[in-house]
C-alpha cells in the first residue's frame, strides 16, 4: 500500500523526536543560566526553532519535495559529499547514543545502583534497532502510540498546582544568571530533533500542509516546556531550582495516591518512550545518510554495524558529568547542523535554479 505520513503523525513525530532527556534538567538550566523567570527564555528559543523550521520548509518548497540527498547529489561531487555524509552520520549517531546513555545512567542512579548500566543500554539499543529496521512508517506509528501512552502525564502537573505560588516567580526578569550564551545553547538543545524532519520529504503526503504540521509539533513542545518551566519556577522558585539536580524528578516524587506513592521511577520509565523516539529518529537519520554512501548494503546490516560501533563508544563516558559534557558538545554541533544543512540546501537549490534558467 502507498502509505504516507499524515500531518498529525508528522507533528507527533517531530514533537516526539524533540522531547527527550533534557526535560529533566531544563528547569534547572533555565534558573541557573538566566536566573529569575528564566522560563521566559523558552519563548525566543521557540521562535528561533520556528525560524529554522521555516528554512526547512523553504527547502521543501524550492526542491518540490525532493529528497535532500537527491538535491545535494545533483550538484555536489561525491568525493566532497561522502565525507560530509560521514560527518552527519557520526554526529547524529553519537548524539543519539549519548542521550540514550544519559537516560540509562539516570535510571541506574534512581533504582538500580548495582546493575551495570551497559546492560540497560544494550536493551535500549535493541529496542531502537527493532524500530529502525522496520522503517520510517513503523517509527511514525510507534511515535503516535507512545505519544498517547505518555500524553496523560501532563495531567500530573495538575497535582502540584495547589502548591504553585505566583510570589515565587518574583517580578524580576532574568536576574541572577551567568554565561547566558552558553545557557542559550544548552536550552536550545532541548528543542533539537525537528531538524531530522528534513529527511522525511519523500515519505510525507504532499497534498497536505506538512510544513505547518512540523511547526505545530514544535509549538506543542514549546507550550509544554513553557508549562513545565512556569510550574517549576512557581513551585520551587529560581534559587531553589539552582540547587536541584533533576527538578522534574522531584516534582514526580511529590505525587502521592492513597495506594501508591514515590511514582518517580515508574513514571521515569514512561519517559523512556520519549527518549527512545528521540534516539531512534537521530539514528534513523544517520542510517539513512550512511545508506547513501553504501547503497548496496542492507539497511539492517548497516543499522546493526552503526549501532554496534556507537554501543562500543558509549562505554567511554562513565559518569553523568562526562556524559553531560559530551551532550553539550555534540548538541552544539547538532545545532550547527540544524541551521547549516537547510542553509546549504537552499544555496544549492538556488544555484540549481539559476543554472536551469540560464541553461533553458
Amino acid at each position, binding site marked *: *500500500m502507498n*502509505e504516507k*505520513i*499524515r500531518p*498529525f*503523525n508528522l507533528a*507527533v513525530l517531530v514533537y516526539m523526536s524533540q522531547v527527550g532527556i533534557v526535560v529533566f534538567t531544563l528547569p534547572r538550566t533555565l534558573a541557573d543560566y538566566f536566573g529569575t523567570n528564566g522560563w521566559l527564555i523558552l519563548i525566543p528559543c521557540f521562535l528561533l526553532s520556528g525560524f529554522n523550521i521555516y528554512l526547512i520548509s523553504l527547502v521543501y518548497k524550492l526542491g518540490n519535495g525532493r529528497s535532500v540527498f537527491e538535491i545535494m547529489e545533483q550538484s555536489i561531487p561525491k568525493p566532497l559529499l561522502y565525507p560530509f555524509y560521514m560527518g552527519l552520520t557520526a554526529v547524529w549517531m553519537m548524539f543519539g547514543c549519548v542521550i540514550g546513555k544519559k537516560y540509562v545512567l539516570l*535510571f541506574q542512579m534512581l*533504582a*538500580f545502583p548495582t*546493575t551495570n548500566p551497559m546492560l*540497560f543500554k544494550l*536493551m535500549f539499543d535493541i*529496542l531502537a534497532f*527493532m*524500530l529502525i529496521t*522496520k522503517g520510517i512508517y*513503523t517509527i*511514525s*506509528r*510507534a*511515535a*503516535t*502510540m*507512545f505519544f*498517547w*501512552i505518555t500524553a496523560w502525564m501532563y495531567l500530573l502537573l495538575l497535582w502540584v498546582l495547589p502548591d504553585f505560588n505566583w510570589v515565587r516567580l518574583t517580578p524580576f526578569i532574568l536576574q541572577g544568571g551567568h554565561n547566558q550564551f552558553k545557557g542559550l545553547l544548552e536550552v536550545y538543545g532541548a528543542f533539537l530533533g525537528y531538524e531530522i524532519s528534513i529527511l522525511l520529504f519523500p515519505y510525507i503526503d504532499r497534498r497536505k500542509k506538512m510544513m505547518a504540521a512540523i511547526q505545530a509539533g514544535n509549538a506543542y513542545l514549546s507550550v509544554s516546556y513553557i508549562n513545565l518551566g512556569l510550574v517549576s519556577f512557581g513551585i520551587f522558585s529560581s534559587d531553589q531550582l539552582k540547587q536541584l539536580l533533576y527538578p522534574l524528578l522531584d516534582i514526580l516524587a511529590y505525587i*502521592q495516591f*492513597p*495506594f*501508591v*506513592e*514515590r*511514582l518517580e*521511577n*515508574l513514571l*521515569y*520509565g*514512561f519517559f*523512556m*518512550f520519549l527518549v*527512545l523516539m528521540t534516539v531512534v529518529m537521530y539514528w534513523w537519520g544517520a542510517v539513512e545518510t550512511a545508506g547513501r554512501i553504501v547503497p548496496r548494503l542492507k539497511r539492517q546490516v548497516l543499522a546493526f554495524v552503526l549501532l554496534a560501533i556507537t554501543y562500543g563508544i558509549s562505554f567511554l563516558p562513565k559518569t553523568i558529568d562526562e556524559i553531560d559534557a559530551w551532550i553539550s558538545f555534540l548538541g552544539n554541533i547538532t545545532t550547527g547542523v540544524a541551521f547549516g544543512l537547510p542553509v546549504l540546501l537552499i544555496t544549492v537549490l538556488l544555484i540549481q535554479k539559476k543554472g536551469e534558467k540560464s541553461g533553458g
Partner: protein
Amino acid sequence: MAEQHERLSLEHILHEFEDCADLTRRNFPEIGADIVYFSHTVDNLLLINQVLDPLSALQRKKELEQLLRESQFVRVTDSKTAVTGILEGGVAVFAADTVHLIDVYGPEARSVSESETESIIAGPHDAFVESATTNISLIRRRIRSSHLKVIHCSVGEISKTDVYILYIKDIANLAYVQDLQQRIERIETDAINDGGMLSQYLEDKQTSVFPQFLTTERPDVSSSKLVSGKILVLIDNSPTSISAPASFFEFFSSSDDYYERWVLGTALRLVRYVALIITLTFTALYVAVTTFHYEMIPEALLLTLAESRNRVPFPPVYEALLMEFTIELLREAGARLPTKVGQTIGIVGGIVIGQAAVQAGLTSNILIISVASSAIASFVIPNYLMSASLRVIRFGIIILAGIWGNMGLVIAIAVIVIHLCSLSSLGASYLVPVAPMRGRDWKDVFIRAPFSLLLTRPTQNRTPNPIRQKNRK
C-alpha cells in the same frame, strides 16, 4: 479423445472409488442405467424426488434420454469432473455411453444454535454452524441486497474445502477483495479445517502472537462488518467466519455495545481497555514493586503486604509465575472437561489457590488478588483469540518485571507496542485509528457514541462509500 471417453466409464469411476465402502451404486436394468453417489452427502428427499422416482418410473431407454435432457442433469465428459461431482454431493447417472451429474447435495448438519464462545446478553443469539451454505443463508437473511456478492474458492490439495468470500459491492474496497482472493488461491496445503486455521494462512505476519483478522461465530457481527465495508470469509465445515481488514482495537468491541444504550456501551468499552491494562501489567507491577520498589507502597499498605509476604520463601517473580501457571492449568482443564466435571475443577481450584496456597505459605494473599484480577480481566476481552494472546504475553512481562522492575515493565510495553506497530492486516495498519491517527473513528472505537454521531464507515476499510448515515438529527 477416445482415451478420455474410455476412461469415463462406470468401471473407471468404480475403480477410482475402490475400497470406498460408503459409495452407493444402484442399477436400473429396464433402462440400462446405473447411478453412483455417496448417501451421506445427498439430501434423501431430493434424491427420491429427482432421481430415484423418475428413473423407476421409466420403462424404455428412449424415455431415459428424454429425462436426461432436462436442465438439472449436466452432461460430463471427463472423469475428473465426474469424481469431483460425486464427492460434492452429486449423483452420477451412467446410461448407455453418456454420463450425467445431478446435484442433490444436502449433508447432515447441526441446526443453528447459540454460540458458546461468544455469548452476549442483549441481541440475537443465533450462531454460525458447520455448513457454509447455512451460514451464507444466515447472512443473506440479514442483508437482503443483490449487492452482497459471494466468490467461491476452494482450499486444500486433498480436502478441497469450499471457501466463500463475501463482500458488498460499492461498499467494500475491491483491492482488498482481490488481495484476499489471491491469498486464498495461493494457499498450498493438504487441508484446512477451521476458519481460525485459514485466517493464519492469510495473515500478513504469521509469526506474530496477535490475531490479525477478526474471527467470529456470530452472524449479526459478521453482517455488521460487511455493511461497514469489510470482507468476510466463510469456510465450509467451520462455524468461524473471518472479517478483514481488522484493527487491534476492534477486538475490544462486542455486538452488545450497539444493542444497549450508548452510555452503557461506552462504559463497557472503557472497562475492556482498563481490563487490557490490568491483565497485562497488574501482576507484573506487583512483582516489580515487591522485588525492587518497596518505596512505592504507602506505609499503611506496606505493613499488610509485608505481613502477607513474610512466610513466602520465594522471590515474588517465582511466586507470581507459579500462580499464573496454576490459573492457566485450571482454565485449560476447565475448557476441556464437560460442564458438570468442569464445576469440580472450579471448586478444587478455588480452594487450592484461594486458601490452601496461602496457608501453606507458598504465596501471599495480595498476589492471589492480583493474579485473580489479571485472569478475570483477561476474560473481559470479548474475543477469545485476543484474550489468549494477551495471557501468553503476560508471562513475558512478569519475567521482565522480575529482572528489571519497573524498567522491565516499561521495556516489555515498548516491545509490544513496537511489534504492534509493525503489524498490518491486508496491508492496512493494525493500529488504526490511533496510528496512523484517524480522529473521526475514535467515537466508535474507544467509546460507542450515540448513533446520530456514527455517520461514517471506519476509514481502515477504505470504502468507496464512506457515508453510513445521512440524516443528522
